[in-house]
């Protein structure tokens, strides 16, 4: 009894974190201006033709992004984690670059690259062909493309994490039985990482559903309206928060549906890859396939990391963007402004770093424990906990902020104007990422390891701490980094919760972008990358494990 009290308290904490703001949101969705109960908001959400096309567009976007992300991430993760493809270290660095690129910058880069009139790629193409053809980013495929570039790295992290854990035992067994490399891959390795692939799909699908940057920067200008931009517009005049809540809350059912589907698809089959018997992991020889594989990875990473960052650096160091680049047009003023003369930017960088570090630490610890409870069924209602932990993901940040605002601005939890309200916002909003990453890791560790500890007299908590936790460290770490990276650039919930003293990087970036200044945005983006790099490098030194799957030699 005493032992499970700790677990119960944890489950209670999770339930409070998630249900308290959502409860306020539900209340907001069923009451009108005067406070009396009404279903008018739901009626408006369902019957208003204004939401139909955006909803359809959003589902097309989410499905395409989910599928394409997994299709890109799976072969890449396999090639980088398990084969002897050359340049894997560099690829890891570039994947890292893609992970930390905020959507705003990816979208900005692709407007500069593939704008129909003056896009760099189009100008080159027309110069080579003397023709008029080219690509136009301001289209639905354009939005999907940029969204995939933003979302696939997360699927990659999940899948590559799982692939690193697959021991060579089963693959060896297959080859002893006469299976060739391709068959082993298709029949053994891929099925073993299926949970991670599915999780990758779900993560990118849900992520794309609430994405803000590419819908606002590429979709809206091209008059492709998506659910997120519509929901944002409900916060303009006339403010219709009830309708926004009524549009967002049903998305919770989508999350539940996807999680249920995941359980059904995976069924009772075992996906345990890490057992008590050890087993070495060897690299697979690709032969001539190394080069096509390498080109594939290079093309994807060029689109998601190299091009955005090259442009970012060029813009961040250009005096004017309309003149040719060169020593005469080179300046460090934008960096100087961000670092020294703009006190709001300094405050934002400091606040965001503190928030990201603390949110990541608490979220990954909480996420790991909850993943453990849910997967190992320490308590009854594991699936319920899983649903709870995933719920915040699908509610757009700005809508979630309404629930947080209502919940955490009244005594005894009057946190408005402090960093605490942002901390709770980030912790709750990004808990799903921490949870998802560790859940995949817990699934792959055989319970026999813990059972051995239990037989030797350890409690569940001790067994978790001493046996399972070290084994799932990679997943927890991946979760930590993702929460850190996301918190560092969070915008959509912060926009309603920050104040002058508690301003954050995401808000600063949107501000500078909306004032029509690309160079300062680029300089801020470079700073963001720098903070990420420093923290990840420090993490690598301290923990000795790289969250991209590499292990320190």
């Amino acid at each position: 009894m005493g032992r499970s009290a700790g677990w119960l308290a944890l489950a209670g904490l999770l339930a409070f974190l998630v249900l308290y703001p959502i409860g306020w949101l539900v209340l907001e969705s069923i009451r009108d201006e005067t406070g009396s109960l009404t279903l008018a908001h739901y009626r408006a959400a369902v019957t208003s033709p204004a939401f139909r096309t955006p909803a359809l567009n959003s589902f097309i976007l989410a499905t395409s992004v989910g599928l394409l992300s997994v299709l890109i991430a799976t072969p890449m993760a396999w090639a980088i984690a398990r084969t002897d493809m050359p340049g894997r270290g560099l690829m890891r660095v570039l994947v890292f670059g893609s992970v930390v690129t905020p959507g705003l910058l990816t979208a900005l880069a692709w407007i500069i690259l593939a704008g129909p009139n003056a896009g760099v790629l189009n100008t080159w193409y027309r110069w080579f062909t003397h023709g008029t053809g080219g690509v136009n980013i301001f289209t639905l495929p354009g939005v999907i493309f940029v969204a995939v570039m933003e979302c696939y790295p997360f699927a990659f992290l999940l899948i590559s994490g799982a692939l690193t854990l697959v021991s060579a035992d089963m693959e060896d067994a297959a080859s002893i039985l006469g299976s060739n490399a391709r068959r082993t891959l298709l029949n053994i390795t891929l099925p073993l990482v299926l949970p991670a692939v599915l999780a990758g799909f779900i993560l990118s699908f849900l992520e794309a559903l609430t994405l803000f940057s590419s819908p606002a920067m590429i979709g809206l200008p091209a008059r492709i309206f998506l659910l997120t931009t519509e929901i944002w517009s409900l916060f303009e005049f006339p403010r219709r928060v009830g309708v926004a809540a009524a549009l967002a809350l049903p998305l919770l059912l989508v999350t539940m549906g996807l999680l249920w589907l995941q359980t059904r698809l995976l069924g009772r089959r075992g996906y345990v890859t890490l057992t008590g018997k050890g087993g070495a992991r060897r690299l697979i020889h690709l032969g001539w396939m190394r080069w096509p594989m390498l080109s594939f990875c290079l093309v994807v990473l060029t689109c998601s990391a190299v091009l955005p960052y090259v442009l970012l650096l060029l813009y961040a160091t250009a005096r004017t963007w309309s003149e040719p680049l060169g020593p005469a047009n080179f300046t460090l003023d934008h960096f100087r402004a961000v670092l020294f003369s703009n006190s709001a930017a300094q405050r934002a960088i400091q606040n965001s770093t503190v928030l990201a570090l603390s949110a990541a630490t608490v979220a990954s610890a909480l996420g790991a424990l909850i993943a453990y409870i849910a997967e190992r069924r320490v308590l009854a209602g594991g699936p319920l906990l899983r649903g709870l932990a995933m719920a915040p993901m699908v509610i757009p940040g700005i809508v979630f902020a309404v629930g947080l605002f209502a919940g955490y601005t009244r005594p005894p939890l009057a946190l408005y104007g402090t960093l605490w309200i942002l901390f709770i916002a980030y912790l709750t909003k990004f808990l799903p990422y921490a949870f998802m990453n560790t859940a995949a890791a817990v699934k792959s560790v055989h319970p026999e390891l813990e059972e051995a500890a239990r037989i030797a007299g350890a409690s569940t908590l001790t067994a978790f701490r001493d046996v399972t936790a070290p084994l799932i460290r990679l997943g927890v770490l991946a979760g930590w980094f993702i929460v850190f990276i996301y918190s560092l650039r969070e915008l959509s919930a912060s926009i309603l919760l920050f104040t002058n003293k508690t301003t954050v990087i995401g808000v600063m970036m949107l501000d500078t972008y909306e004032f029509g200044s690309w160079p300062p945005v680029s300089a801020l983006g470079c700073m963001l990358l720098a903070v990420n790099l420093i923290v990840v490098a420090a993490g690598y030194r301290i923990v000795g494990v790289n969250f991209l799957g590499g292990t320190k030699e």
Partner: protein
Amino acid sequence: MTRTLKSLVVSAGVLASGLVWLAASAQTPAIPAWVSDPQVYAAAKKEGAVVHYCTLPQAYCEDIGKRFEKHTGIKADITRTPSGAQYSRLMQEHQAGLKVTDVFEIALVAAVVEMKAKGMLEPYLPRDAVKIDAKHREKDRMYNEYYVNVQFIAYNPKRISAAEAPKRWKDIYDPKWKGKLTISHPKFSGITIDWLLQQAKLTGGWDFLQKLKANEPIVVRSSAEAIPLLVNGERPLNAQSYGDAAWEAKLKNEPIEISYPEEGVVVSHDYTGILKSAPHPNAAKVFVDYLFSPENAQWMVDHYVYATHPAVKPPAGFKPLNELKTLVIDADEVARQTQDVRDRFSAVFGG
């Protein structure tokens, strides 16, 4: 206590506080000339702080705060938010019964009118606001404007010659600008409501929306977002460029030129006012005094913002508000028509 003793104590108290006041006033600088009421000023100094939401660029907000603090010793806590987000916050705070914000400044007319109707505003007319044109003041003194947003046409001179560039508003509907134009979406950009209303007035109806659509414009969220697209040549013509954003690019020698349409520039309101729930009601008044002061107006104009105070010297090349032909619509009418304008726009452009 006897009567005499009582009066003795009272007069001693008065004397003592007078001495304290004298000592204090010897240390601090004199009351600034722009302050409306010295008593309010004294009370404001006791409050010691003012909380302000503003939509100007972050750097401008910081500068206003520093200058105000230097003059008064009152700390100005200024948060920069876009108009839509600011409106959401003010409503949110109102609903939760929070008393955290003193002064707002917002470019969303309908929101201000709604706040007035809900009784959220405290009437106040700063001393210098009397000098500005009556069309920038509200009749019940609930909100006034110390600066306005001015919209004109901007073009990229590398792609469009001065001769070719639109001279009148109706020129932007010429089919030759197909694929070259940017406009803003009225759902996200408050100042676009005024712009659309003026276009309807000038062209006599709403058919212009179809002509605009035929030119396949890119529709941005915030008007300033159009400037980088203009400068890099992606969209060389911006049908509703505005004030400081265009000027900032121009000052950096980016290829951008302004065309002031013959019919006049579109002025959209940007209102400043005090909340009834202000935690620092006196400091709020003094702060608003400062926003409307000639000193602040001069700083604004020096930074290419269209201040309403007439006593300003514009920098070279900049036409201040009183030298421009302007098109202004009454705030109440803008508020009344906001939803209708958005619906009309959405019916043609979607969203």
